[in-house]
């Protein structure tokens, strides 16, 4: 009995000890696991197969300020996403892994890049998944041609549109919002700061940057937006008057500022404009030194014509412009150009009166001839009907 009891006690002790051992063993097994990435909170974050992780899961770590990685080049790649900016961005409803396609688990795969630039160049192609039209346009752009030619500094999508902060800049119809126009030159200035500095001083740039006037052109109004062409080509030069004309022949804009909308007509009617227009129509790649708008008015540093220092209304400034191509020109030479005026008794009066003379002289002379010839025809027909032999 005692033996039986003691054997029962022994069994109990063994059982208790055994259970304790199992618990201990399990505890020993479990504890390191609890500290590993597969622990409970992570399991909530890491998605099931085929699903993308929730942005909250990514931001759980990535909204911490100052997260970064040092790349082999020594540069620092910031890994922090400002969640408040991201929430205001056009991409707020896009899953992180839509773009960061290789990052769906933790720990993340190692970055396979040496430099920051390499990272950008590796990433930007994902934009085409949603923005195919814009992406395809960029393929013909001067920037992408430069990238293809090995210039890694040339702009890619993300250089202009920070994917984590890019706000919506178009309305429902895809038209650019007026306020979005204000920031465009600053974006281009990241790489083209010397041009931006010149632009800021120009009549257009000053109105935009100082007065917030959105009537004036920003960079993209002349250069295009995604399919930005090389502006140093002959073709661009020949087409350029049409770029200026887009606004400068539009009375809706020009009337506000009292600017003539005859500037294109008067240019095309003159030697230079006629030649440039015909080159553009017939041989669009023709090399020419015939002036286009920006040769006289400035490229990015376009000034008002009544600018007290640089304005072309001042004869000596216009003469300087003429002399760039006609070094022998004297002070009366600039008057050969009618300064975009349509001839009138007050502007280019000689031209006006010559035109007026021929306006009456030609019909008078030709009209008299026609009257005489008609009278002759009728008379000769009458005589022929009467049977005259020699009429």
């Amino acid at each position, binding site marked *: 009995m005692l033996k039986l009891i003691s054997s029962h006690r022994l069994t109990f002790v063994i059982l208790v000890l055994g259970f304790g051992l199992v618990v201990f063993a399990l505890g020993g097994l479990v504890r390191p696991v609890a*500290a590993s990435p597969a622990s409970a909170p992570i399991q909530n974050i890491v998605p099931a197969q085929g699903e993308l992780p929730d942005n909250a899961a990514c931001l759980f770590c990535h909204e911490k300020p100052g997260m970064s990685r040092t790349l082999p080049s020594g540069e620092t790649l910031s890994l922090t996403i400002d969640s408040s900016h991201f929430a205001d961005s056009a991409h707020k409803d896009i899953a992180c892994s839509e773009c960061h396609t290789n990052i769906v688990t933790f720990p993340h795969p190692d970055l396979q890049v040496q430099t920051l630039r390499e990272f950008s160049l590796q990433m930007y192609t994902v934009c085409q998944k949603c923005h195919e039209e814009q992406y395809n346009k960029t393929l013909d752009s001067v920037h992408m041609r430069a990238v293809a030619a090995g210039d890694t500094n040339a702009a890619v999508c993300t250089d202009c549109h920070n994917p984590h902060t890019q706000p919506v800049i178009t309305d429902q119809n895809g038209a650019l919002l007026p306020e979005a126009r204000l920031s465009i030159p600053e974006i281009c200035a990241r790489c083209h700061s010397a041009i931006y*500095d010149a632009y800021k001083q120009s009549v257009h740039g000053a109105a935009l940057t100082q007065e917030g006037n959105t009537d004036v052109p920003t960079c993209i109004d002349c250069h295009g937006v995604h399919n930005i062409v090389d502006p140093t080509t002959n073709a661009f030069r020949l087409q350029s008057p049409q770029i200026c004309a887009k606004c400068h022949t539009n009375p809706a804009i020009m009337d506000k500022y009292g600017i003539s909308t005859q500037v294109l007509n008067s240019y095309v009617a003159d030697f230079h404009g006629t030649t440039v227009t015909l080159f553009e129509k*017939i041989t669009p790649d023709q090399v020419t030194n015939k002036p286009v708008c920006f040769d006289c008015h400035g490229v*990015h540093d376009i000034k008002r014509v009544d600018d007290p220092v640089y304005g072309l209304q001042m004869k000596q400034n216009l003469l300087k412009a003429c002399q760039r191509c006609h070094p022998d020109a004297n002070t009366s030479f600039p*008057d050969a150009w009618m300064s975009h005026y349509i001839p009138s008794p007050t502007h280019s009066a000689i031209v006006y009166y010559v035109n007026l003379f021929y306006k009456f002289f030609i019909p008078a002379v030709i009209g008299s001839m026609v009257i005489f010839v008609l009278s002759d025809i009728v008379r000769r027909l009458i005589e022929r009907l009467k049977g005259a032999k020699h009429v």
Partner: protein
Amino acid sequence: MSEKKTVKKQTEPTRQPVRRFERFHWTLRLAHALLLTSFSLLGITGLPQKFASTGWAQAMIQFFGGIETTRLIHHICAIVLMFLAIYHILDTGYKIFVRRTRMSMLPGIKDVKDAFQAFIYNLGFTKKRPQMGRYTFEEKAEYWALIWGTVIMGITGFMMWNPITTARFLPGEIIPASKAAHGGEALLAVMAIVVWHMYGVHLKRFNKAMFTGKQTEEEMLHEHPLELADIKAGLAERPADPKTLRRRQIIYYPVAGVLAIAMLFGVYGFIGSEKTAITTVLPISSPVPIYVPQTPTPIPTIIAAAVPPGSLTWDASIGAVFQSKCVMCHNATLATNGLSFASYADALRGASDGPVIVPGDANSSKLVQVQSAGGHSGQLSPEELAVVKNWINAGALEK
């Protein structure tokens, strides 16, 4: 014409040989052929330039091979016309001063009367056509229109061809005015040729005299009855005797030679005096350099906070280094290898297999050993590692 209708249309009235009168010498006919060619080419290359904005003009310019070729053709024809003008001046001078032929092309009151009479005859107010001499009023009108036109076109053409030279002597505005006049005159000339010349010598009756050089007596009778009468009376030409002719030639030839050289120099100046705009270099497309980045390499994301300067404590500087480089993996939640750098206490507690920081001894600290080996996912920069080592050696203080 005064005959009644009883005379029916007959073929040839007689069988006797038709008498022909020389009307244009072959040199004049050659000059006319050149004039006809150059004038036509000037017209068809010039009018598209006047109306360059229209589709038909652009199609024509394209046909000629572009505006530059069109202008070249126009200029070459202008030069031909200038040579013709010189020839005509010298030839006319010879006729006037040497041969002393009648200046039958000079207009007079009779021509005005003839024109008026012809017109009222056509209207039926008179029964008689005007009787005219060697040149009818129609021919004179056309000749003088051509002279007037050539002078205007030559002067205005010169001003457009040589604008800088022109501006030295005249106000610059004269250049666009020349262009206006050149275009207006061109339109007038082409239309006059179409209306007046085409009707007068092609439609009314095809007058072949300018090609054959001759007219029949019958043609002469109808068109130049007074001249025919003069010829028959022996009054038309009074040939000088060879001696007188010779004497006049000896005077005229040197004068004409000097005149010819002067005029040829004029043509040379016309063509070649100005080339400035053609030889100047292409203007540059931008006066400022194109690629001037504001940052050395543009990056799309925000730059991480740099290591703040200050005393070597966790709170002052070291914590921020761990925050930026380590906490991504080693934080309170993830705690890779049981290690967290989320706080000072976590950092000193170390990993599941022991502490990683030995205060006062950087080289014994596992953190320093791992980082010094390199290749860690959250690799500190050499500067950062140096700062961290200094901090550990200084006792790894929190404050």
